[in-house]
Every structure is written in C-alpha cells, then in structure tokens.
C-alpha cells in the first residue's frame, strides 16, 4: 500500500499556490502539513483527494498487491472544514447514509454506527438531529463518519478545529489506531496533534519571484 505524489503544483484562480511537492507514504505512515494560513495546506489536501485538478504532477495510489487499481481519491476519506452532515437528519441517519453510500473498500471493514459513536464518546446522542449538536460534538460525529466505512487513507483538514483538549487527545488516539492498523494519514493542522508523524512538510507558500506569465 502506497500513496505517492510527484511534483504537484496547483493554481487557485490565477495564482500559483504551490509547486513541485512530492511525497511517498507507506502503510502506517503519516504526513503532517504545517504552515501559516494561505500557504496551500488545504489546497494540497484537496488535490490529493482529487477535488482540484493539479496544474502539474500526479497523485498515485497502489493497493495491497502493489497494483495501480483505483484512483487515489477512492482510497481516501476526506474530512474538510465542513462536516458533510445534514442538520435536518439525525446523527444515525447521517452516518447510515455515508456508510451505505461510501461502502467499505477492499482490505478492511468499518465498524457499526453504534460502535463508531462510542469511539468518539458520543454513543448516547445518536437519535438527535445533527443540527442540535454543539460545534465540537458535530466535529466528533463528522469524524465518526471515517470509522463506519473503511478507507486506507484519511485526509484530514484541520480535524481539531473547534475542539477542546480532551477531544484533541481522542482524535490523536483514533488516528494512532488507524496508523497502527496499517492506514495512512495526511493531516493539515495548526495545533500540534499528539501523534507520531513519520513525515512533516512545512508549506511555505509560493515565491512570487518565479511566477510564470499568466494569461
């Protein structure tokens, strides 16, 4: 299992956000992106998730058998700034929808909805509409979505925004467990997440000196 990126560059609008970023992650490895606001962390994660087409370079995923099977995006869970949960539906309905829609990928299986809620320590409020939860609880439930359907790669964009320290520790524990089980994690963060990252990448933002001539 490997997630590789080669010489990625990305534009946003007319601006070049970053260029020539490469990394190579194997089972159980994590990459933590740090850097100031606007340095392109989110953009890089969205490029890896296949949501932005890179201006140059490519992202490649090789499964357990070392074959290039599926798109990299399909091996990934993406937890962005927004939670991707519907406030009108109950938490259980939200999680059930994502479990049925995403389905487990080959090579693993997700836990049940009840177990996932227990793992984020919110087992008692599955029956409530998602909109009634506090921001921190919503974030934890959005994280539970990663547990109900198996994906080897987790892409986390500021996972601990709006969380207190105990919840941060909880997330770090879940991420460690995922890595321990052979998963791969890409995370962008301001706060130092308490887990052992094998690689770090500091995003510095783009140097304008070598900006190419835009149309």
């Amino acid at each position, binding site marked *: 299992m490997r997630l590789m990126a080669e010489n990625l560059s990305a534009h946003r609008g007319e601006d070049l956000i970053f260029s020539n970023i490469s990394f190579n992650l194997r089972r159980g490895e994590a990459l933590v992106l740090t850097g100031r606001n606007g340095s392109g962390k989110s953009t890089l994660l969205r490029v890896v998730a296949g949501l932005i087409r890179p201006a140059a370079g490519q992202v490649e995923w090789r499964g357990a058998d070392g074959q290039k099977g599926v798109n990299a995006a*399909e091996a990934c869970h993406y937890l962005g700034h927004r939670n*991707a949960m519907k406030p009108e539906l109950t938490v259980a309905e939200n999680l059930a929808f994502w479990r049925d829609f995403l389905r487990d990928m080959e090579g693993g299986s997700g836990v049940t909805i009840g177990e996932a809620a227990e793992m984020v320590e919110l087992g008692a409020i599955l029956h409530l509409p998602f909109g009634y939860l506090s921001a921190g609880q919503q974030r934890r439930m959005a994280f539970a979505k990663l547990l109900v359907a198996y994906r080897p790669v987790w892409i986390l964009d500021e996972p601990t925004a709006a969380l207190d320290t105990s919840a941060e520790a909880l997330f770090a524990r879940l991420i460690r467990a995922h890595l321990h089980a052979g998963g791969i994690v890409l995370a962008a963060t301001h706060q130092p997440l308490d887990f052992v990252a094998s690689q770090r990448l500091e995003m510095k933002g783009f140097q304008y000196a070598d900006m190419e001539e835009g149309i």
Partner: protein
Amino acid sequence: MTALLLRDLKLSIRAGGGALIGVLFFMTVVAVIPFGVGPDLNLLSRIGPAIVWIGALLAALLGLDRLFQTEREDGSLDLLLMQEHPLVLVVLVKCLAHWLANVLPLVIASPLLGLFMNMDEVAIGAVMLTLLVGSPALTFIGAVGAAVAVTLPRGGLLVSILVLPLCVPVLIFGVSASYAAVEDPAPFLPPFLILTAITMFFAVLGPVGAALALRNAGD
C-alpha cells in the same frame, strides 16, 4: 444509490416543506391569471392547459437551484465527487429524488387547477398525463443550470434565466399534446411521443452536462 435517493427524499420532506411551497406557488400563479385576463369561463377553458403548464414550469424551477448548492455548502458534494460511482448516476438519482419530492406533487395538484380553469375532464387528464411525462425533462435540464450556478451564492434567478430558453421545446410539445387531446383534428399521439422522446433525451443530456459542470466548478 438507494441510500442517496432515500436521504434526499427524507431531506425534502423534513426541510420545512419545500414540496408544499412549490405546490403553493403553482396554485398562486395559476390563481392570479384570471385576475389578469378576466373571469370569462370560455376564454379560461381555452387557455387553461397552457396556463397550467406554464405554472408548473415555473414552480418546477423554483427550488432547483438548491439541488447541488446545499450539498456544496455542508461539504457533502466533495465526498460525492470523490466516489467511484459514476457522477452521472449520482446526478440522475438526485434529479429523480427532486422530481419525486417537488414536481410530482405539482402533477397531482394540476387537476384541481384544471377545475379552476373550467377545463373539461379530457383536457384535465391530458394535462396531467403530459405533465407527468414532460416534467422530468424540466428537472433534468434544470440540473445543468443548478450545476453551472452551484458556486454562486444567489444563483436562483440566474438558473431560471439559463434554463427557461432550453425548456421551450418541452413547453411546446406538452401544451400541443394537451390541446390535441381536446381539439379534434389534431392527433394526440405525435406530440405526446415527441414529448416522451425529449424527456428521455434530456435524461441523458442533463445528468451528463451537470456532472461535467460539477467536476469543473470544483475549487
């Protein structure tokens, strides 16, 4: 895919009665027409099918701009775009859910408005049948507009402007078929079959176009 259909249906029922607002809008538009053209029953029965069709067209476009926008706002669209299900299929299912929840009630309400318009039974049946067959085309073609305007915060008006010219054929054949059922010399079947063909054509073109637009609207 079933999960997506069920979720969208649940959402449209729970999100403050979006379907009911569409029906209400439909009834209000049709009810205002007699105040404009006068209470002449003969005239109303003559223009009735056209009025009901136009009302349904406008009401069908009403909530369409939210089709992908709500998904984008809470981040669900990102996850939908990442999956291996063909995006065209996702769009098709979302269109079906939208049609079932928002447009089918219009079709069901149309006989009542037909009575207001002093239409006879055959005309009412014809309008209902043509609406049932033709209105999915409105949703499919509207999906393209909704996908194109997905990143615009107030895209509602723009979606209508973009979509209405493309709806002209549906309107023409829907109304033609309704009239053909009432007026003797004109045959009912040809316009009705063309209407069916248009719906099937848009069932392909709409989702393909919308999927293409969604992929390209990403940021």
